[in-house]
């Protein structure tokens, strides 16, 4: 399947990845050839085949619903990783 430049720009926005005009040209070529390669799977008859969920068949995993305290050091590291904070809160651009 051939992607247009506009397709590539749309996908980049959906993926939340900013790309330059030169990158649009590059990814148009790369992604189109990858998608063409994926067409190979259409040859395979998968009628009645159940798709894989968990590969070794693990189901119904439970754990106790208990809060665990994180150390103050750990909390500090988490907050230090965040670009912009104020009074112990994460600061973000307004969404609306």
């Amino acid at each position, binding site marked *: 399947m051939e992607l247009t430049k506009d397709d590539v720009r749309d996908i980049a926005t*959906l993926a939340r990845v*900013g790309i330059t005009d030169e990158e649009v040209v590059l990814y148009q070529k790369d992604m189109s050839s990858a998608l063409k390669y994926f067409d190979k*799977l259409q040859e395979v008859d998968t009628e009645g085949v159940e798709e894989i969920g968990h590969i*070794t068949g693990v189901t119904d995993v439970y*754990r106790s619903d208990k809060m665990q305290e994180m150390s103050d050091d*750990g909390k500090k590291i988490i907050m230090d990783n965040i670009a912009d904070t104020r009074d112990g809160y994460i600061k973000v651009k307004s969404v609306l």
Partner: protein
Amino acid sequence: MIKDLHNKLVSGELSAVELAKKSFGTIEQKDEELHAFLTVMEESALRQAEAVDAKIKKSEKIDLLAGLPCALKDNMCVTGVKTTAASKILENYVAPYDATVVSRIKENDAVIVGKTNLDEFACGGSTENSAYGPSKNPIDTTRVPGGSSGGSVVAVASDEVVWALGTDTGGSIRQPSSFCGTVGLKPTYGRVSRYGVIAMGSSLDQVGPITKTVEDAAIVLSRISGRDELDATSAHSGNKPYEDYCVGELKGAKIGIPKEYLGEGLDDDVKAVFMQAVEKYKELGAEIVDVSLPHTEYAIATYYIIMPSELSSNLARYDGIRYGGAEDVEPQTVLEQYLDTRGKGFGPEIKRRVMLGTYALSAGYYDAYYKKAQKVRALIKKDFEDVFEKVDYVFTPTAPEAAFKFGAKVDDPIKMYLSDIYTVTANLAGIPAISIPIGTVDIEGKNLPVGGQLMGKWFDEEGILNAGHTFEINS
């Protein structure tokens, strides 16, 4: 090697501090050129080593891993230590907790020397996708070490550490092990906890050991494997003392050679080395059986749909808010902030895969790509179920060629993806697989290592470890 060093520590012939200093000396001497490490942890490593020496002095019992220098791929969280996944977006990220594999080896008093280089977010087969520059193959520095766990493999191959951990989503432990002459094991999916390991393709990722000998891989696996409540996908079956299964006897074992792995694309010299290894197994008393895995030709397409889909979903968290610092340009809206941070923070291969994955999961295409791929994956798994009715192990080359030159494949993503052709099937089927050195090929005057891959039944790590060990001690 681990057992020898352990005995020397216990007998007092060597101290853990001496071993750690030797490790840092080797890093100092070699790593400027080889670039296995992204972070070296000298201070904490020496503290860990001193603690082990104190235990030995008091005649306390120590674990086999205690006091031995090891390295971790830089996609595993270690409290208070930078964990970058070789991405610019995590350049300043410090992990607030230990991955389960890390807390397990810390409990055993392993000495963590540093964090190793990889392809960004473990996406690649050469370390050329690292945002911090590639690692080099210690056997021929004009060649790639393989990837994505290239740094961990180089650290072991060049004696900077005794053992290392890598991760393997489509061959990232086994292929570099083949290129650098180490042993690399990808366990059964779920055998080892993924908690605290930066996720790439969550239904495929596994952590595993990289070592000099098969027995060492067994020793490390025994200590990192087993159920973890913090990883819901980890398997319920208990871990075992895998090293006890390395008995060095194979008589009567049935080894399948799949014809699909010996066809077009396999280098002639690599094939010749592989066929000698098959002969060796015959001499050791194994029965060699020709088998077929008919859906092999669809494995790369299947893998390169499933993995980018899962990657794009896993990497959505790198939003420039909780991870990844604000850039110098001040964006006006949240969307602009996302586009800017991720556009600048991700390298070209990550962008390519995240976009492919986003496309494959988007409305209208999900059935044609992701769902179809998960169905073909079921058929690939079925191939292995059928073959394991007839044989105990499947034996193949690990990679279609020896280590390639830097730059040889960077311009052609599909060509790069095809070098995973023999390794992705084990991840898709969830089975354990190990790469062991089986010989060398002479290219431009250098003896480049060649790996052979043993694949086993689900949760039969002990079987492939013994088969690998038996080969190793007889060659």
